């Protein structure tokens, strides 16, 4: 077992031009429904950009500066956009059954992104330094303590700041990158076959039109 060889193979695919810069896509994979994932990714980019500007100026910049207040607003609305597009995207891929054809791990990584996005947003709410932060911190502590997660101390602003500006975004960014790479490597999931196609493939023997595009379960 040569670890370098294994890594070369994996990385070669993960970082290839074909993965990241495709020049053609399946013709069914166009239109607004297929833009939702990109809109989610773009919202994440806006979060990173506005977040970097705020981090560079220190945690209380927005209280003393008009520009700071504006950038903080961009960050706030980007969070709303991020979750909005992510949930719309989730619905799109769910209704497409987009885990078919060996794409389960792409779905799993997507849900993981949603799962990590929740504490990322939560630690952000704790950084506002207003009543909403105070209230969220003291309310969340009981649940966290009860779940055995007391190590995560929402009352410790220093710990929350570090988690919010580096640890969670890093993990989330990594998950998103691999998620998108996997979508590209597997190709977006093709449409459900129609009745006609299923008959051709010999899956459906009956011409019972009521069955529509469905394959009876068990087959």
């Amino acid at each position: 077992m040569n670890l370098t060889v294994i890594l070369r193979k994996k990385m070669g695919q993960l970082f290839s031009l074909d993965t990241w810069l495709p020049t053609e896509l399946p013709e069914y994979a166009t239109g607004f429904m297929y833009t939702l994932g990109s809109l989610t990714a773009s919202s994440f980019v806006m979060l990173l950009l506005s977040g970097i500007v705020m981090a560079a100026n220190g945690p209380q910049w927005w209280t003393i500066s008009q520009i700071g207040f504006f950038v903080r607003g961009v960050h706030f609305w980007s969070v709303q956009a991020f979750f909005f597009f992510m949930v719309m995207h989730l619905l799109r891929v769910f209704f497409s059954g987009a885990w078919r054809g060996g794409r389960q791990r792409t779905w799993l990584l997507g849900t993981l992104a949603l799962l990590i996005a929740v504490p990322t947003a939560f630690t952000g709410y704790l950084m506002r330094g207003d009543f909403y932060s105070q209230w969220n911190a003291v309310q969340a502590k009981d649940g966290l303590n009860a779940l055995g997660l007391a190590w995560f101390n929402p009352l410790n602003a220093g710990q929350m700041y570090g988690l919010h500006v580096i640890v969670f975004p890093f993990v989330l960014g990594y998950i998103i990158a691999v998620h998108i790479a996997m979508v590209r490597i597997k190709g977006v999931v093709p449409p459900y076959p129609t009745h006609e196609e299923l008959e051709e493939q010999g899956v459906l023997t009956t011409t019972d039109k009521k069955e529509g595009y469905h394959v009876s379960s068990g087959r």
Partner: protein
Amino acid sequence: MYHPDVDVTHRYKYASADFVKHLLSTTVIVAILTMALSAIFHEPVRPAIKINQYANQHPLEFVRVAMGDLDGKGEIADYGPPYNHGTGMVQDFVQKWIGILHPVYPREDFVLKPLQYASVINPKIKSYLNRFDKASPVQQKIWEANYNRALSHARYEGGAIILPSGSYGPVAGMMQGLLQVGQSGLMTGALDRSPADYQFDNQNSLLFLQGKPLHNAASKLELKGDQWGIIHEEDAPYPGPWWMTIVTAIYQIPFIAHASAADAMALGSGMILFLFLMFAPWIPILNRLPRYLGVHRLIWREYYKKYHAKDFTM
């Protein structure tokens, strides 16, 4: 059973695309959208509750909070792990098992220590503290109980807490002193002293405020747990963390809301629901559900129209 071969169609063509242009345009759209929203609506801000402000506006409430910390009957004094050995807020065995990670002993940390700092400036406080320290624990308890009982008849006039006469020992003087520390604006600093030189942690000042002070302010804004509080932004028309809607809904189930382990149960069942979503591709009926729901006919409408017009019925 899962059938990769029959579940995907094989007849489709590739069309040329500009992926970079696509990503740039979605980013420009989101950038314009969020900048416009920020410029027009800004972001909601509701000023934090400060201890000095609370001590000035609600002096008797402040003293009541401090007495709970002193006599060990307050919420944090009796909380339990991860703060101390209390039992009041222990919801399950995991919490006990994790143990005391962030030690907080309100009698010392919230009352006696701040008074000690203040005694350097005000020698009167020093004499109260000396008298309190020298008394037996039983005597201390009696003073505290007497003072607590008298508090419901107390008035606040010209900066002083006026009590009916009684045997409070030094406790009355100590509480008057602590109220002054609170009103001065020095209390937050006295509470949040870290063993290191730099201060990054506001745990104790938040724990001091966490009971009545924050709860009263929150219930006016409908932010409490049983008011769907998790998903309310503090300024009504603004969107809050609505992605927590399902967890918040679980909190409203009476059986869970009234349980002593409410948080553990609500968050635990939210997590179980989420696991269903996560593992949907492997869960038998769930993984075939979208096919039967038929929304995909809308998603791939153009495709089905083009190639399967005959078969395509909405």
